[in-house]
């Protein structure tokens, strides 16, 4: 094999966006992220190093406009036939450099997806928020303020719980929603976001999807307070913190779609988030291959290059094989998303799509965690070195495995689908 692009994926799945944009994106990433990424950990609080790279990628290449329709100055990806695959390509390329960076960009799409992707489109809200992202020369972030202190991953388990554990309330007062609650851990919190998508309940304790409301809240409104960023094991480019909403008032039409449809549209985030997680992982794994290739070619065991020793070849062969298989699966998951409107496809919110995609993400995460751990051991004395980049990915990709309900929720969703479990 000559190049990382030769890791397998179905040629039929490659989108026009991929063909034209990947090379430019990769070049920009190699200039603006890769040379600096080893300093990102120490930049977790201030983002002095990280911010200019965001400007170049999100504004310079226009990626923060990706979802918005062309008439609003966007790229119109949300209503293309290849929205998931385009997203996969972007997230894979970014993941190759830095998965924290990738998730910050990917999550900016997340709340906007609720109003942008057929059949859940809200043109008025799109028009309202488009200028925030399309008419600026600074990187602008959005966040889904989902997780609550008491709820853990309950919000990602909407299929089972129907939102009954949500404590953030939305009360209609005239033509305004009044929002109160406390959220924590969203990607792009910690003072970064300009816009929050906030899952709320209009009737605390209810598991009726009609009482679930997804409401947009600009971050600069009175009553919105953001805490500082948490210090984490990795992913310094993604800031996370607490957000408090105290009698925050937004126009009534800032609710995404209305009773019932909010929950459906919101649930689309699960497959999207899981597919993009696969992309972060396969991107990072492709970089693992590049760095490992260099090490096993230039370092020896028994005075022969590591890669020429049968026992070592057995280990690194498995790693490369896993990367190949994971990439095939990752693109398949993206294609499942892009088939959503086809006669032979399934809606994003169907148990079929959620179960299959969760399953793929769980599998790819497990393989990634194993491959990075094993690669660090192959590097031995050098495995823990920042300079070899693999350890940074190892810290970062563990986080990808854990988020969105983590491994156990993936297992449950898969079991529910494949075995028709009725009580889990």
């Amino acid at each position, binding site marked *: 094999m000559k190049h990382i692009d030769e890791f397998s994926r179905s040629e039929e799945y490659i989108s026009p966006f991929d063909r034209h944009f990947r090379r430019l994106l990769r070049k920009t990433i190699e200039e603006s992220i890769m040379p600096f990424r080893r300093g990102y950990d120490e930049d977790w609080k201030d983002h002095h190093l990280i911010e200019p790279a965001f400007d170049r990628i999100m504004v310079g290449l226009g990626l923060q406009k990706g979802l918005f329709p062309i008439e609003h100055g966007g790229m119109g990806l949300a209503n293309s036939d290849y929205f998931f695959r385009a997203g996969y390509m972007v997230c894979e390329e970014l993941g190759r450099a830095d998965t924290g960076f990738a998730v910050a960009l990917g999550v900016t799409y997340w709340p906007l997806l609720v109003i942008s992707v057929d059949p859940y489109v809200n043109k008025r809200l799109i028009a309202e928020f488009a200028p925030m992202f399309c008419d600026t020369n600074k990187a602008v972030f959005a966040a889904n303020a989902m*997780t609550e202190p008491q709820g853990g991953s309950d919000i990602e388990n909407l299929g089972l719980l129907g939102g009954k*554990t949500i404590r953030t309330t939305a009360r209609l007062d005239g033509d305004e929603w009044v929002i109160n609650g406390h959220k924590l851990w969203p990607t792009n919190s910690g003072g970064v976001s300009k816009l929050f998508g906030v899952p709320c309940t209009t009737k605390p304790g209810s598991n009726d999807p009609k009482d679930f409301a997804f409401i947009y809240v600009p971050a600069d409104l009175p009553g919105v307070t953001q805490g500082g960023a948490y210090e984490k094991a990795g992913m310094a480019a993604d800031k996370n913190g607490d957000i408090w909403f105290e009698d925050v008032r937004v126009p009534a039409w800032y609710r995404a779609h209305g009773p019932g449809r909010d929950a459906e549209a919101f649930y689309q985030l699960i497959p999207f988030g899981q597919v993009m997680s696969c992309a972060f992982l396969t991107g990072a794994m492709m970089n693992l291959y590049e760095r490992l290739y260099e090490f096993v070619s230039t370092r*020896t065991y028994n005075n022969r290059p590591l890669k020429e020793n049968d026992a070592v070849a057995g280990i690194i062969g498995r790693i490369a094989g896993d990367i190949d298989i994971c990439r095939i699966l990752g693109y398949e998951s993206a294609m499942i998303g892009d088939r959503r409107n086809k006669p032979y496809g399934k809606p994003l919110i169907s148990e079929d799509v959620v179960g299959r995609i969760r399953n793929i993400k769980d599998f790819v995460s497990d393989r990634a965690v194993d491959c990075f751990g094993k690669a*660090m051991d192959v590097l*031995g*004395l050098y495995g823990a070195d920042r300079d070899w980049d693999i350890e940074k990915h*190892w810290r970062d990709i563990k986080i990808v495995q854990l988020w969105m309900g983590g491994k156990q929720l993936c297992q449950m969703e898969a079991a529910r689908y494949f075995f028709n479990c009725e009580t889990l």
Partner: protein
Amino acid sequence: MGRNLDNLFVYPKQLMDEESMSVVRLVRQWSDKEIVTRRMEYREDYEKLFTLKRKMLCIDLGLQKLTIPADLGGFGWNSPLKAPALLALACETGRADASIGILSAASWALFLMIACQHNHNDKLCDSLAARYSDETVRTPALILTGPGRTGMQTPLFFGRSILACAEKSETGFTLNGEDLRPLIAGGMADFFCVVCADGNGKPGIALVSGDAKGVKRGPSILMTGLNACGNAQIDFNHVPVPVENVLDQDRNIEELYSWLNLLLGGVSVGAAMNFFELLADWSDNRTIKGGVMLKENPLCASVLADVAEEIALARLLLGDLAAIVAEQTESRPETIRRTFTYAGMIGHRVQQGVMHAMNRGLELMGSAGYAKEWHVEKHWRDVKTIQSILYGVAAEAPLKMDTARFFYNCTEI
């Protein structure tokens, strides 16, 4: 907290005498009082408190002198018979902080290599003991074997490259080597324990003072874990080494690896036991699915069980290894080789098991797993670092070759 770890993670105590047990209890008290119950404070002022707490352990409690012979002013634990007690201490220090644990373990291993009765090096013991007997915390750095570089033919220790060379000179030996990588602490070491080869490629070990002429330290290296053990690449440029500071027997290297597999295994298991405590505390009051206790959910309980099982089995395996090491009171090559092989096998299993436990635990803890605030992520990073550096190169491949050689008499691998 407040769980009785020794009741939960049982290990054979029959080889531990009352003196050993009391020292272990003392170190447990230090660990609990000074670090384990003050995690937040310790994390926020890590650099300062690490130095302070380590000094308390090494100097105030005297553990720095643990393996120094009694007639040289030490505790006199310079015997393989003390292996079970040393293992218990490695666990206790690792439970507090793996960096303190590994620095202590390196010191103990060093003296065990040169001061055990069957292996005693009088002159070297005297000079090292003198160095260890003042009120300064001493830090050794171990430069062992590792990867070679393509295009270079290096002397080998069972396939692993030896990159330092000790050649005979008029006054003793001259040590040379470039870009050498210590396991830890290259930037802060008082002295170096270096696996080297003579002009004929015969492996040995040289002990070199950190301030010797010709020792050059590179810039500090950023690493995944063990962040208090400031590491750096080392160059030796014609460094003079006294004759008594060179151990020229293969068995010395094998014994050093055996001790390191035992004690670093102990450090990792200790870290894992504290990981368990933190996970157990966390799971005591977490709910899922809108109110079900997390630990009462069968899937989550099975993950929690995995964590405990791996740690418990790792501790038991190390107890067995300590018993094997304790029997090694003579220098018969076949006994040393057997211990070396078992130490490699068990050390590998232990590190793997502990990493598996931590990876499983993190899966359950989610964001609490990777937030620095909860501290489990530090244990996870520290143990992964120990695992990788202990392999040296090529993951478990060299260990598998050692095992195959021992059990099947392979001669070409």
